[in-house]
């Protein structure tokens, strides 16, 4: 599952001063993000005493009172921080294309050192490479974050948590390079030519999705879920 940072902020979210003043039904309303940010800047509030049990809301998601050993706490914290992350654009993410990682944000141009071939697909028997104008959806990301919150995958984040699309802007090549190779005591000169090809992508969409309903129940690793999505596409 996603591990969320930092730990101190987890405590702050639960025990903001506004939270202790408000009555339980009011606390269920979405708290202003400014309050969260300001709370994180003042160190004195970290030592604030925990809420009395009466003030804690009955619903577990906003403020879990369970211990760390309780299994649902991971999902509950994920839900809390995921909501916070969603409301704090712009986002960044580290996508993985053929095991190469690229840290991108919306509007970035990335140059891949290869011509991209789509994954094997029965609908595409010729398996042509991607051409300018094609849209791809990136499914493997190891880090997804904003200014203050980050979701880290082990090794990848579940692809249902985010939407990242890219458009192929350009399929290009470098100028031809020629290198002359010689051996001693021989007149023969071998010319080695190389001309590498590149694909240029532009990140056209980067968004954090709403937490899927089934995600609250499922807690396993992201691996099998990722492969499932790849097969669908």
């Amino acid at each position, binding site marked *: 599952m996603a591990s969320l940072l930092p730990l101190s902020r987890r405590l702050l979210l639960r025990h903001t001063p506004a939270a202790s003043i408000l009555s339980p039904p009011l606390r269920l309303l979405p708290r202003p993000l400014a309050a969260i940010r300001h709370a994180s800047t003042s160190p004195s509030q970290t030592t604030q005493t925990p809420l009395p049990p009466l003030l804690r809301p009955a619903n577990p998601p906003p403020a879990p009172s369970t211990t760390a050993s309780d299994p649902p706490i991971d999902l509950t914290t994920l839900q809390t921080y995921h909501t916070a992350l969603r409301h704090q654009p712009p986002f960044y993410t580290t*996508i*993985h*294309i*053929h*095991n190469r990682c690229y840290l991108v944000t919306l509007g970035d141009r990335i140059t891949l050192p290869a011509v*991209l071939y*789509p*994954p094997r*697909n029965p*609908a*595409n028997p*010729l398996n*042509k490479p*991607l*051409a300018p*104008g*094609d*849209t*791809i*959806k*990136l*499914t*493997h990301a190891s880090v997804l974050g904003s200014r203050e919150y980050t979701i880290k995958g082990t090794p990848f984040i579940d692809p249902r948590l985010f939407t990242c*699309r*890219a458009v192929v802007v350009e399929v290009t090549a470098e100028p031809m390079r020629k290198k002359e190779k010689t051996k001693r005591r021989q007149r023969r000169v071998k010319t080695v030519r190389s001309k590498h090809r590149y694909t240029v992508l532009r990140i056209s969409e980067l968004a954090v999705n709403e937490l899927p309903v089934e995600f609250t129940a499922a807690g396993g690793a992201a691996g099998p879920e*990722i*492969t499932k*999505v*790849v097969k*669908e*596409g």
Partner: protein
Amino acid sequence: MPFFKVTLIRSGIGLTHKKLGVLKALGLRKRMRTVFHDVNPAIAGQLMKVKELIALSTTDKKLSRRQMHEKRQPPPGFVVEKSRLVEGEGKS
């Protein structure tokens, strides 16, 4: 149906011609070559001949070399949503 999955870990260089012949019969030409064989007494006897050189396990599925290669590859990390060149590209 189970299969023997045999990988040649140590080379057969320097062994007797009989053992080299067994390796050849099993289809183990180079180190790290993996082959699949049916489970039967004849194969088991061959494997016992060269048991010092191989890594052995049983599997339910026989994989081709291409499948084994693809299994080792990292995930491509993307799916094509819209392609101008190919009609009916995956619309997920």
